[in-house]
Structures are given as C-alpha cells and as structure tokens.
C-alpha cells in the first residue's frame, strides 16, 4: 500500500488545540500585522472586535504547526504498521478562508481537517493532490476560522 492510499476521504483529522496567549498574539502582530486590535488591549476595546485578538494569519499559521505535529504521529504509526508514509510537497494555495469570530487572548482553538478529495496528477507522475476542509473551534464551541486547503503528496 502506498502512502497516498492511506488518506481516507471523509476522515476528520483531529489536530489538537492551541491556547493563544496575549504575549504571543502581540509578538506575532508586531512582526507581521501590527494593527491596534492585535497589539493593545485598550485600543482593541474600541475596535470592531471588542478585545485584544490574534491576527487571522496567526490562527492559520498555528493550524500548520498543529497539522505537522499530527502528521509526525501519523507517520510514526504508518511506519509501525509497515506502511510507507506519504511525503508532503508544496501547496498550490487555499480558498474560502473565513475568520468568523475573533480569537481573543486566552482562547483555545481546536483544529480539525477533513479530507475531501484526492487525485493523481497527470503533470507530475510521482505526485497526487489531497484537498481538505479545515475548521478551528474555540472553547465555547464556536467556529472561529475555516478554509479549504490542498497539498501535493507523494504517491
């Protein structure tokens, strides 16, 4: 069985959760997204969001981190079962990214990605493409972020 076969359409992968501290929200924002509602709790109270909240790009970057953590464990599991784990390649992009609610300092976001399709690529014989739908859900059960993702994987 090739690694590509290990992907099951419809499987909802649980990537675990991450708690966003005020310190990391501010550190990220200083580098890449220094808008007042990502930097300063007092200024954020007067904004559309009502409190210090993470840059949307911070919430997606953490998804990638959790994705890779999950993948390391999955790769080890496949190896233990005598299967060849797929190698992850580049991604062509993302679509339908929605920041549905603010991620406030202290919030925990639980990430899930459901595999929606897989197909082999005619242009690259050694590679296939896996598509998924990602959701991030906070500690109150509210969806805060979602998007559709795609990535090349070795056959």
């Amino acid at each position: 069985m090739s690694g590509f076969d290990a992907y099951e359409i419809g499987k909802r992968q649980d990537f675990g959760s991450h708690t966003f501290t005020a310190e990391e929200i501010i550190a990220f924002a200083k580098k890449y997204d220094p808008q007042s509602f990502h930097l300063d709790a007092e200024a954020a109270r007067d904004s559309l969001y009502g409190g210090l909240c993470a840059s949307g790009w911070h919430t997606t970057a953490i998804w990638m981190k959790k994705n890779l953590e999950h993948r390391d464990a999955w790769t080890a599991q496949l190896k233990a079962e005598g299967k060849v784990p797929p190698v992850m390649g580049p991604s062509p992009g993302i679509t339908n990214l929605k920041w549905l609610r603010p991620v406030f300092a202290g919030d925990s976001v639980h990430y899930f990605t459901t595999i929606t399709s897989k197909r082999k690529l005619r242009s690259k014989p050694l590679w296939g493409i896996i598509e998924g739908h990602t959701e991030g859900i906070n500690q109150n059960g509210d969806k805060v972020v979602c998007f559709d993702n795609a990535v090349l994987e070795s056959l």
Partner: protein
Amino acid sequence: MLENKKYAFEDFTPGTVFHLGPYPVSAEEIIAFASEFDPQPMHLDEDAGKQSLLGGLAASGWHTCCMLMRMMIDSFVLDSASQGAPGVDFVQWKKPVLAGDILHGTSTVLSSRPLQSRPGLGLVQMRQELFNQRDELVAASENPFFVLLRDKGVSS
C-alpha cells in the same frame, strides 16, 4: 486614533492601486518562521530545499501570506481606518519564494460598498499580486476588508 488616518472608505475607489514592498526575504527570516509554524525540511535547510520541488530554501506559503500582510500594513493599512478582514477568497502560491528574493507588488481596489447592517462601516474588495525581483508572479490573493466611513469619525 481615527482622526489621524489618511484613508477612509471613500478613498478606496475601484481601480485605486497601492504599491507593496520592496521586501527582502532573508534565509534567517524563512528559517525563523518555519521553525515556529511550518518546520518542513524545504523551509529549514538549503540542501533539503534544493532536493524538493521548490528548488531552494523556500518560505512557507503561510510566511508569504504574512509578508504580504506586512507589506499591505506598511503601504496603506496603518494609514487607513481599516477594521480588519473577515476572510480571504483565495491565496494562490504560484512560484516558490526563495531566500534572497526581493518581493514587490500591488493591492488594487476591485469594488466597495457601505454596509447596510453596520452604519458607518464599509466593505472593500481588494486583489493582491506579489512578484519577485524577476517580475515573476509568486502569489496572488483576493479579500474583503472593513473600513470606517469618513463621516463616522475620520477626517482628512
């Protein structure tokens, strides 16, 4: 302070272009971002990058999104009454962004409308194109963002 902002909703007329960059992409920054958020070999190590489909030490696509955000911040966002974005319709990673590249690009206003549901607030639709120093398109995106109307607290 909104009173000091240069751009309000009324300034984002369709066809308006904001210039982005230049943004030099260093190996150190690629590795620092990848170490924290996307620790795949092609984002961490030159040799591993050369052996990958990306052909060199390449920035994480999420890092490219963050660098694009920073270029937009420095071009017009902090000078505007922006209230953030509800999402992004798409991001296309068209070519690898490699260590040593110098990025530049444009943000173009596609359309705009005041929000009926939130008086004083408008929604502006933007398209971003990011190029490397050879003028090859490396990333493109489209997104809406919220911005206050001038007559609701912004003067110029």
